[in-house]
């Protein structure tokens, strides 16, 4: 039992656990929808858009800590832009995401280059790989509030979102406001991604969206079951990965994601029996 209680006796580990659980649960629920909608890469795309937003924030004079919050409106705009392109062209989700992803990343690099030489250097590593062990109480509060809000909104709209993603036309015939729901899902995903970038970093955040959802999707025969499995895998992977990384003294975010990947492999093996 000490294996679990010992690491969790530290306050920073407790905060990491709460942040990890919150991010993994909300990403799993949203992930099932975006993966089903053919937007598996949106997590990656929006995380890179977030980088663009951070760079703009830095250019405007904020420090790295607070630039992330400046990135929220920018990333939401990019998400809505992806939604607009999806609706008004015949391009597929990966293409629309790819275009906006490149645009915002290039914009980010441009703005970083525009900063004066005297400006503080940016710790790119913490931005890229996050620092779940360094989550401050303030950041934890933001993570919890954003995750809880997104979770409640998504669960309230779950049955409409599911219908809209199953078949937009049939859902519209049944009176579901398909376009509004799609924009809402994208905008909300953007906010969640930015907050998650703060904890797990740009590179790893999309795994939280894709891997638990994909694993749940493999085993779930209905969308509801797939969602529940994704949540269970996401949360269990976050908790296990955190504790394991403590004992093994290895990077936490990576351990969590490798745990998720292991769950995915097990799900695949189970489904092929």
């Amino acid at each position, binding site marked *: 039992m000490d294996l679990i209680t010992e690491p969790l006796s530290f306050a920073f580990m407790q905060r990491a656990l709460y942040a990890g659980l919150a991010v993994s649960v909300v990403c799993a629920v949203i992930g099932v929808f975006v993966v*089903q909608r053919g937007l598996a890469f949106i997590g990656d795309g929006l995380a890179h858009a977030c980088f663009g937003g951070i760079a703009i924030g830095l250019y405007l004079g904020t420090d790295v800590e607070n630039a992330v919050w400046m990135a929220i409106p920018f990333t939401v705009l990019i998400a809505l832009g992806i939604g607009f392109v999806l609706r008004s062209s015949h391009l597929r989700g990966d293409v629309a995401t790819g275009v906006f992803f490149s645009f915002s990343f290039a914009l980010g690099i441009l703005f970083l280059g525009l900063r004066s030489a005297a400006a503080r250097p940016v710790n790119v590593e913490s931005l890229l790989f996050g620092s779940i062990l360094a989550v401050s109480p303030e950041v934890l509060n933001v993570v919890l509030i954003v995750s809880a809000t997104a979770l409640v909104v998504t669960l309230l709209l779950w049955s409409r979102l*599911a219908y809209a993603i199953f078949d937009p036309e049939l859902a519209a015939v*049944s*009176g579901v406001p398909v376009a509004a729901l799609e924009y809402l899902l994208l905008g909300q995903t953007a906010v969640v991604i930015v907050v998650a970038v703060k904890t797990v970093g740009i590179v790893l955040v999309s795994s939280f969206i894709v891997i638990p959802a994909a694993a749940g999707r493999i085993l779930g025969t*209905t*969308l*509801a079951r797939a969602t529940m499995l994704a949540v269970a895998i996401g949360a269990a992977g976050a908790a296990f990965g955190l504790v394991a990384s403590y004992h093994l003294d290895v990077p936490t975010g990576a351990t969590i994601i490798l745990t998720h990947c292991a769950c995915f492999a097990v799900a695949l093996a189970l489904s092929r029996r």
Partner: protein
Amino acid sequence: MSDVPVGGGEPQAPTPAWATSLERREHAQKLKQTRPDPGAPRVLDVDHVSIERGGKLIVDDVSFFIPKGEFVCLCGPNGAGKSTLLKAVMGLLEPTRGKVRIGGEPPERARHKVGYVPQRKSYSMDFPARSVELITAAVRGRWPAHVKPEERERARAVLAKVGGEKLLDKPLAGLSGGETQRVFLARALVTEPALVILDEPTAGVDVSGRAELLRLMVEISRSDELAAILVTHNLGAVAHTAERIVYLEAGRLLGWGLPDELLGQSSLTALAFAGTDHARHRDEE
């Protein structure tokens, strides 16, 4: 209501050149086309509907109505505007001019009165869904996270009606073309609508399955006093089963009458089978 009078005994007109709406009206007046009784209770009323999309006039001043329980075949070549007109009937798009009434109400307020079998399956094939959920979603207007026993029973009963009882718990992705159509037909019928819209429901179904499905639809329409609009290219097979034919071409209503009258008109039959898939479909029969 149409601006074209009911009936008429004038001799048949030659194949027309559709230049002006006046010419069209004159032509229609010369055709023997028996319209339904204008006083009958109407399930669907399409009243001078025009639809523009992307700056193009796709449906051009179309008027017709469907009385209670009538089985109507909507036909016309590819691109005639059939699907677009039906989208307006379902309230998926607003007509540029004119109005649609379902049981006297605008489509947005009559969703439960219309069942719809789409032309193209636009649903995502990899969505984890079973027939029972698809059918329950039509009842609730939302996707079910959990299907209640009474909802399940309702889905089972309506599937049994279309001869697909054993499909209840099958994943949609694993259904054959004909089975999919049965499930979607059941989905359209489950809300006990007054009007069913079938947009080429037999696409992807083999010849015997097609005849069987058509027979089923006509039977259900008759026994339940259900009005139906069936869109099909396969005029030969359906025309004589339908009570009336509405013929659309280039967005215009060129014919509205009994199957025998319309199929007897060389101009329309020629139009119907010329330069489209019709000949091929007919030959396949």
